[in-house]
């Protein structure tokens, strides 16, 4: 019997390894040094540096986390503990367009399940998966703070706060290459 547990209790969750060491460019190392300078304690730059790593390397692999730890001169397990806590840090590769549908109550009442079902059918994948061409990843997420305009969803960082019918959703997907 597995251990019954909720929440984000697991520390040291296995990070995916690519087997290839990676390093930030000099410009990125400078950007990280600038981040450190914005805080009284450089440790505070862990989150912005992880955001930068995710942007550069696509997701936070063991190697990407190690690169952040080196750039900040912080212990690697500490950086890994942060990377594995927050849901927006991707611990596995994602498609070029990350579709995130809010599933929490208000959006759920306004048809979030239906929106996910439609996206799954259209993309031929289940929530949590990526299309084989690497174009889309579909993810169910918790409250995005747009409860009045549900069901709301985000494509990468862009919020869609207007209710779209199935045809409009299809047109939008077709426009994302």
């Amino acid at each position, binding site marked *: 019997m597995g251990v019954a547990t*909720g*929440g984000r209790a697991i520390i040291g969750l296995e990070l995916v390894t690519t087997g290839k060491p990676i390093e930030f460019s000099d410009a990125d190392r400078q950007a990280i040094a600038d981040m450190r300078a914005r805080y009284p304690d450089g440790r505070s*730059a862990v989150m912005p540096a992880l955001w930068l790593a995710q942007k550069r390397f696509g997701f936070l692999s063991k190697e990407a986390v190690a690169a952040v730890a080196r750039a900040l001169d912080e212990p690697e397990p500490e950086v890994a503990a942060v990377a594995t806590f927050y849901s927006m840090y991707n611990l596995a590769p994602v498609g070029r367009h990350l579709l995130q549908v809010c599933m929490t109550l208000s959006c759920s009442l306004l048809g979030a399940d*239906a929106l996910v079902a439609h996206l799954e059918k259209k993309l031929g994948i289940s929530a949590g998966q990526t299309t084989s061409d690497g174009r889309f990843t579909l993810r169910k997420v918790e409250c995005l703070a747009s*409860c009045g305009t549900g069901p709301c969803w985000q494509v990468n960082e862009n919020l869609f706060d207007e209710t779209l019918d*199935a045809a409009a959703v299809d047109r939008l997907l077709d426009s994302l290459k």
Partner: protein
Amino acid sequence: MSHPLGCYGPVVTPKGRKEPILFGDFAIASAETLEGFRAGGGYATAIDAIKNRKPEEITEVVKASGLRGRGGAGFPTGMKWGFVPKDSPKPKYLVVNADESEPGTFKDRELLSRSPHRLIEGMLLAAYAIGSHHAFIYARGEFLFLASLLDRALADARAAGLVGKNVGGTGFDLEITLHWGAGAYICGEETALLDSLEGKRGQPRTKPPFPAVEGLYRCPTVVNNVETLQTVPFIVKNGAAWFKGWGTEKSPGTKIFSVSGLVNRPGNYEIEMGLPLRALLDDYAGGMRPGTKLKAVIPGGSSVPWLTPDQLDTKLDFESVAAAGSLLGSGGAIFLDEGVCVVDALLNLTHFYRHESCGKCTPCREGTHWLETVLAKIEHGQGVPEDVRTLKTVSEQILGRSLCALGDAAAMPILSVLEKFPQEFEHHLTAKRCLVNRRRASVERVRAGEPATV
């Protein structure tokens, strides 16, 4: 699009109701830009106050105004500022909690989108009052689409000499750093937010010491909500007595309610404290959608006990909502209609809390897991009478036994629904299905090729 993302149209005040305070900014042309905001009189209050008044005077006027925190807990803002030790040799910090994540609440985002400089003005006043020279804005990662707008607001304010050294020629210095979260509801809890800002997993701390004494980097820190800080310039400008002219004696002022669910006009509404819940629903939100009937109201964000239609006369101020058995919270009002299965809705919310529990305290970590497991069993027609008792006892065991209120937030709605809608649980146990469930019905409609909404 004619309005910013996630925002609503022009503010329309129902007949006989006072014009809003904070939303007054929305009527200023281009209030989101520095030029627009200044043309509307913005920053004048902060500069004047920092030049001509002592920090203690600012704290005093906020104290006297009775302003209470708008993030959910409702703690008196001036009192919070007053807890910062004046003689501490350590630096003092101001932190803005812009990690708005409480399901049902979406007001801070609209405030940030439409009036970011009002926040900076409020920060100047708060920082001056507590003697802070470095402030932080902690924004939830899901708001990254606002990054360019917020970066620009800060850069413009800095270029105009309103942030940085010698703010507005007053001799007061304030540095502001914008910090992005990365997806964690718990970081809305102020001590978890501080850990996150320090570059750690966002987990609540043991209190005391409270942040005012030992907060960010173990230095005296004040954490205030966006709406709270945006209210401060109006209080400093117009005085405590003016502010107390709004609302009730113990809950003065206005409060923004985010209205969602099956209403005709969902959106953010700034109401005078003490407005009856019924007026929020009917006068502001346009009532329930045609063909739907109200079943329950979650008045203050998903963490609070539910109210029923016979409680619509409840006044929306901290004391009256508490007297009705719920909490005003963050003002996220979700209106549920008769088509909603309450067990299904609770399962949805409990899944949220289980997912968002940070894992630090056992009652919350294990309790939310068990609540979700048992609710799923009941919802899916596999429940036995004992399960309802388990729900109740697990909820009661969670209450008050963790460092923060996340576990309580999962338990309180369940206890209230068990009490108010026992027949729906009974029906699941005997008929092995929901008494009502429009959510599933809407899925069926979409499979038939109809729009993805009800």
